[in-house]
């Protein structure tokens, strides 16, 4: 649990360890994984990538609208309509909006996986694949609804949960060709790194360790309930950005603490301290001070992780369909023109009719 060291240094140390006779810890393995090297970010760097994608995409679509004006179809447009389109297209889809809509669809991925009774690893991998794809791809270029099944299918293969494309397509009632169409692009966007160190293994590890540390002080059935509830929370945590910022054991420990703070703090106290954490530092021995330091550091990470798990990017219905509608306009500007004209008509009727063709976000 020494994963708060600076990443650079840690990776280097771990690298060397692999060639010596020293014991290789789970942490070393994690620091050498692509999950850490290719898919871990600081909050600032991840945000930067997302904002840059949003900006680039917006510029690209602004150019696209210029060429749309050259098309025959656009000849009927009057100046007011042109201005309205320009305004709409200049908005783009912001990084925040993209994150909202992607989170919404990641939840749909989760729902479909659950319906298909897929193992937790496959559910989690599907969700991660989905989220990762949209770090470097805009929702305008590939609508999230068209990636759901590709993601689940690739995750099944990657997690060794074998299912034929035929059977899969039939089960989810989708066109097989459509599912396979974007598989390559998905694999590429995942930087060809497919391995995920999931949260379920550390959960099981903690489950066993808590029993041994709190031997005779805890009811196994109760701990089983904590385990199951935490597992649910962990699956939901894949909707958040926690996976990019923290190591799997950190996220797992955080979920356990959120489930039963008193129990888990007792466990950590016995595991790492052996004394009351409230003891004033003056009365601690040197080695106790070191333990206390580590413990405090861990608590700090847990508390910031808690915030990230709790932060929901899920948009409300209204926001969701507004973003979704805008994605459709970007793909097909004439749809915007139609709606704009229809709105103008109804506006003159004074009746404030809601958008007649509400895009249903399935």
């Amino acid at each position, binding site marked *: 649990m020494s994963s708060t060291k600076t990443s650079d240094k840690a990776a280097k140390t771990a*690298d060397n360890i*692999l*060639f010596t006779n020293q014991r*290789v810890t789970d942490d070393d*393995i994690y620091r*050498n*994984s*692509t999950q850490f090297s290719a898919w871990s970010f600081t909050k600032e760097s991840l945000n930067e990538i997302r904002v840059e994608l949003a900006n680039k995409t917006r510029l690209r679509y602004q150019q696209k609208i210029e060429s749309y004006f050259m098309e025959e179809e656009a000849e009927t447009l009057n100046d007011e309509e042109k201005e309205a389109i320009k305004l709409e297209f200049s908005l783009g889809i912001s990084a925040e909006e993209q994150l909202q809509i992607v989170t919404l669809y990641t939840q749909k991925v989760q729902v479909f996986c659950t319906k298909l009774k897929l193992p*937790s*690893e496959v559910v989690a991998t599907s969700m991660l694949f989905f989220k990762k794809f949209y770090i470097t791809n805009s929702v305008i270029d590939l609508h999230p609804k068209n990636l759901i099944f590709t993601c689940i*299918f*690739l995750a099944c*293969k*990657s997690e*060794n949960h*074998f299912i*034929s*494309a*035929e059977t899969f397509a039939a089960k989810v009632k989708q066109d*097989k*060709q459509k*599912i*396979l169409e974007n*598989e*390559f692009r998905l*694999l*590429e966007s995942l930087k*060809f*790194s*497919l*391995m995920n160190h*999931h949260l*379920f*293994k550390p*959960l*099981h*590890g903690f*489950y066993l360790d808590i029993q041994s540390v709190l031997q005779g002080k805890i009811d196994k059935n109760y701990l*089983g309930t904590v*385990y199951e509830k935490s597992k649910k929370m962990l699956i939901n945590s894949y909707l958040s950005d926690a996976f990019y910022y923290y190591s799997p054991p950190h996220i797992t420990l955080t979920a356990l603490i959120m489930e039963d703070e008193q129990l888990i703090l007792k466990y950590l106290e016995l595991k790492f301290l052996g004394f009351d954490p409230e003891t004033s530092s003056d009365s601690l021995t040197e080695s106790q001070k070191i333990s206390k330091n580590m413990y405090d550091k861990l608590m700090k990470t847990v508390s910031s992780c808690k915030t990230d798990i709790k932060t929901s990017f899920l948009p409300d219905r209204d926001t969701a369909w507004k973003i979704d509608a805008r994605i459709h306009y970007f793909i097909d500007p004439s749809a915007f023109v139609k709606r704009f004209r229809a709105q103008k008509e109804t506006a003159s009727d004074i009746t404030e009719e809601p958008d007649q063709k509400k895009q249903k976000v399935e």
Partner: protein
Amino acid sequence: MSDLYVKEKKLGEGTFAIVYLGKRKETDKQAKSVGYVAIKEIKLDLMKQSDSGDNMGIDISAIREIKYLQELKTHDNIIKLHDVYSDIKTNSINLILEYLPMDLDKLIKKKTIIFNSMDIKLIVLQILRGVNHLHRLSIIHRDLKPANLLIGENGLIKIADFGLARTYDDGGINSHSNLTNNVVTRWYKSPELLLGSKNYDFKIDVWSLGLIIIELLIRVPYLPGKDDIDQLNLIFKVLGTPAEKDWPQVKALPHYNTNLYMYPKPNRQEWRKRFIAISDNFLDLLMSMLEMCPGERWNIVTCLESEYIKEFPRPSDPSELVRLMHE
């Protein structure tokens, strides 16, 4: 990315992949020593136009190879994946791998080469180390055989071909294994696989290694079965038919037949007669790697920490292997 490498000649062809000998293009004038690479081109078109019309998308063995090799870049005894890139022109995924022209199978078959005990130990130690790295990353190779143990120009042995590899899932209080037993090339298949077990573990790799090491000593495959049934029979004949007392629950395995001929388990003297020239500790290692019952069979760490590895003589220097290769 695709401009960085040139394909020079075709080395081999499989169902979905073609392997080329390639080179990294000279982009940097200072980089004078340009080494060869193997380029595995995985054709996506071929998968789409399969005769049966059963398009599976990207081949699962390609996915496994990419998935595992990406995580295994730091170990000397595992083939290095330098790069992966997609090539729109040929609609393919290209794996840039270390080019390793020699493998253990070729080396074993080259009868002019004589290995001394130090050479043997050098080879054994390297394959144990490579497999140890896989196992500590929870990866079971599932197809260890001499032809998949490649040898570099520096005398380092490299484990290759991860098309059948998978992660061993031991997590979760509700987890239950359901692994396919249709893995590993027949002669190196462990008894639990042949008996149809679906919750085997890392020990299947140890079994394969045990047989590879014996092959290294006797220079022919030790248990070359004609088919899976013959393979199982051969194993029992040579190493004894397992009974419940040596292997609890063995009778519950799907292909266990109660009419089996009960061959006796060879004792130490018998083993000694078969392998006269090796040390006692080496014999212990072999016997323990080929324990019929997976629970009794040594795991890779025990093999690495065995007395055989610690005792004299020390393994020879990898350069010795290079010398033998070119003899």
